[in-house]
């Protein structure tokens, strides 16, 4: 490591002060490690690059140590965590590609654009791997319905998800939405996309071929979305802070063109590697591509299509403008690729090439403005083994000690009118859930079902989590989220295959919050292992906390299953009078942490219901066999609100009455 001189830098580059280092989210000892592997003080753009690569979002530094404990292998798994999305085999030479991501903080600041760009980002993660997106889901958590901001946030988030997803022509077919005061200051907007790709044409991000051209495609780069660490860089550009809106604005029209252009080019074999520019845009994509390929990469920032003048290296490398991708092309295919992108009127610019140096070299105005080793950016990313305090699960509640409701039907009415259990038709009718003409089971059921190609196969998709269980007992809550997703796929007759997840938690630097994260991951791991339900991708969102008040621990599970014949699928609607209702599984009258306890008795105590994974599997396999045999007219998973609410939901769906007979 030669101690290279600090490269020429921006116009008025300050010396790096401890405040600037702290503003970039780096601890003093971490900064020392940077100086060590650089062999000198970093320039501002180099510091910015490290800060983003070592951020929680890119490096998973607080959670990686525990994420490794999750099962990621399985018969159907083609690609587990580590790429843009997970890939599983669904037979007939096809693969399902899916992932979930969160845009929680931006959505609180600007709900429409925050949610819209969240949907746009997750779709890029899927089609960057060569998959045509076929279904979108979203898991939303808002504050109390009567909180002053809630109405505005719900309206903006739902309109943003619809505005982006509908324009892209990808049906939004499922998800969840619930409300709790713990989310008053921190809403959760988790978006999931499922795509389908030919099994032998999956595209990865590992760069290959020294000298190959690195190509930038999609929208132009602006100053939007550069993270809080921009204060230090404000002195660089001669414009004031107002010039740098931290909110990214999505352009679904450009992304629709980007989707079609990428899939059209992917039908040829021009592409060696491709990665979407998500968090930290050009930085993450170029570094990860080079690292995975074991190569270096040289970028000429003057050739990056920009939509503003005088952008500094820092701003170009850290900008999070939307709808952009980075590709490595095979030699001689540039003209073909350029023609495809010009057909769709998209920017196409060769911005650099691959080298053997294993270094990221940035040039601007002919001068080197950044020169750093790639490997340490990825391998020396900090990894914390944060101290944690396990949550003490409360004692189980004695149901007999609770007052019997005077009028169970009145209680039922209160439950189905509650914000969490009421019909969410008012939300999903704002989403186009029919585009592509493949939607077999529409929103509102246990799982959505989307036909694959011309059928008869179908993909079942769902997203599940019961945050109040996770707060009371993280381990049980984590297991329950996986079990319920597994059960919901089974309820439509599908065979569960694999899951993605979105782990939303408070500040991991607080041991009790870290204890929630550890507990939930352990519970998830046990359930995924017991149910042969591997985790193939996911996202972690931490620091969801305002003035010390953290959200409920919310490990959302996004699950995908397969059904061989969509005409044999089950829905929650009984088909006619005279049908017999059969309850599968033991009923223990468990009321701890129940919606009944909260909505009717105003209490949130007691242990959550235990999860018996062996019984879950046994009952699920039985129900699936019954559905496949054609004996079953309707099937519904019992969740929030238990038997009474589930029966009511079936009756409403079938426009029929239901008589429940208590055991003698």
């Amino acid at each position: 490591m030669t101690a290279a001189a600090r490269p020429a830098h921006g116009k008025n580059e300050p010396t790096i002060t401890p405040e600037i280092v702290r503003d970039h989210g780096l601890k003093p000892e971490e900064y020392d490690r940077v100086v060590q592997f650089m062999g000198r003080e970093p320039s501002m753009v180099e510091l910015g690059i490290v800060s983003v690569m070592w951020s929680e979002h890119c490096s998973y530094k607080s959670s990686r140590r525990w994420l490794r404990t999750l099962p990621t292998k399985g018969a159907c798994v083609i690609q587990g965590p580590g790429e843009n999305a997970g890939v599983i085999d669904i037979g007939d030479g096809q693969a399902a590609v899916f992932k979930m991501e969160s845009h929680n903080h931006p959505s609180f600041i600007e709900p429409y654009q925050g949610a819209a760009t969240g949907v746009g980002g997750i779709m890029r993660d899927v089609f960057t791997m060569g998959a045509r997106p076929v279904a979108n889901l979203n898991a939303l958590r808002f504050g109390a319905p009567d909180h002053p901001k809630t109405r505005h946030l719900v309206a903006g988030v739902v309109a943003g998800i619809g505005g982006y997803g509908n324009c892209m022509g990808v049906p939004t077919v499922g998800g969840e939405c619930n409300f709790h005061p713990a989310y008053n200051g921190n809403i959760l907007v988790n978006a999931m996309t499922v795509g389908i790709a030919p099994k032998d044409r999956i595209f990865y991000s590992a760069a290959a071929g020294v000298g190959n051209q690195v190509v930038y495609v999609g929208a132009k780069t602006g100053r939007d979305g550069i993270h809080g660490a921009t204060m230090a860089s404000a002195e660089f550009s001669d414009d004031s802070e107002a010039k740098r809106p931290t909110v990214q604005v999505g352009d679904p029209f450009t992304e629709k063109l980007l989707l079609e252009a990428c899939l059209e080019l992917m039908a040829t074999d021009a592409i060696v590697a491709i990665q979407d520019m998500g968090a930290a845009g050009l930085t993450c994509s170029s570094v990860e591509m080079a690292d995975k390929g074991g190569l270096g990469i040289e970028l000429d920032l003057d050739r990056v299509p920009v939509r503003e003048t005088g952008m500094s290296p820092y701003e170009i490398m850290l900008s999070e403008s939307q709808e952009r991708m980075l590709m490595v092309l095979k030699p001689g295919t540039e003209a073909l690729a350029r023609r495809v992108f010009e057909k769709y009127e998209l920017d196409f610019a060769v911005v650099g090439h691959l080298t053997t140096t294993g270094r990221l070299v940035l040039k601007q105005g002919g001068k080197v403005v950044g020169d750093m080793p790639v490997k340490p950016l990825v391998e020396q990313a900090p990894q914390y083994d944060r101290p944690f305090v396990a949550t003490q699960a409360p004692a189980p509640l004695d149901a007999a000690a609770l007052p019997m409701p005077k009028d169970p039907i009145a209680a039922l009415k209160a439950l189905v009118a509650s914000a969490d259990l009421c019909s969410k038709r008012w939300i999903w009718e704002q989403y186009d859930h029919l585009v592509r003409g493949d939607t077999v089971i529409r929103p509102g059921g246990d799982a959505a079902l989307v036909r694959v190609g011309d059928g008869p196969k179908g993909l079942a998709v769902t997203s599940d989590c019961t945050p109040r269980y996770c707060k009371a007992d993280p381990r049980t809550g984590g297991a329950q989220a996986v079990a319920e997703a597994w059960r919901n796929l089974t309820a439509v007759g599908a065979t569960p295959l694999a899951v993605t997840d979105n782990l939303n938690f408070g500040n991991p630097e607080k041991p009790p919050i870290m204890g929630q994260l550890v507990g939930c991951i352990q519970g998830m791991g046990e359930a995924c292992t017991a149910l042969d339900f591997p985790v193939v991708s996911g996202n972690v969102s931490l620091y969801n906390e305002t003035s010390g008040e953290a959200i409920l621990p919310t490990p959302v599970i996004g699950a995908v299953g397969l059904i061989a014949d969509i005409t044999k699928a089950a829905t929650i609607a009984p088909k006619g009078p005279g049908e017999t209702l059969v309850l599968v599984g033991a009923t223990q009258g468990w009321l701890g942490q129940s919606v009944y306890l909260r909505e009717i008795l105003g209490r949130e105590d007691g242990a959550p219901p235990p999860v018996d994974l062996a019984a879950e599997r046994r009952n699920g396999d039985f129900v699936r066999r019954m559905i496949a045999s054609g004996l079953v007219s309707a099937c519904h998973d019992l969740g929030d609100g238990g038997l009474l609410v589930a029966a009511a939901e079936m009756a409403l769906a079938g426009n029929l009455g239901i008589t429940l007979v208590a055991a003698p």
Partner: protein
Amino acid sequence: MKAKVHVTLKAGVLDPQGKAIGNALHGLGFAAVKDVRQGKYIELELDERDPLKARETVERMCKSLLANTVIENYRIEVDGA
């Protein structure tokens, strides 16, 4: 009393509509077009005679509904104030 409000995107904020309109105009042969920005123009009829009070009311309307102050600026014109 009539009030007029212009709501426009803040500088630096991406304007997808403006970009698409610009491309379409070029497609129609209007080569002279260098940049297009699209905003909202709202005309309000108010049951209010005092121009200053009217301006103050419209200011509150802009902050609470008419403009998304995170990414938009607004400009108010009231006859006589």
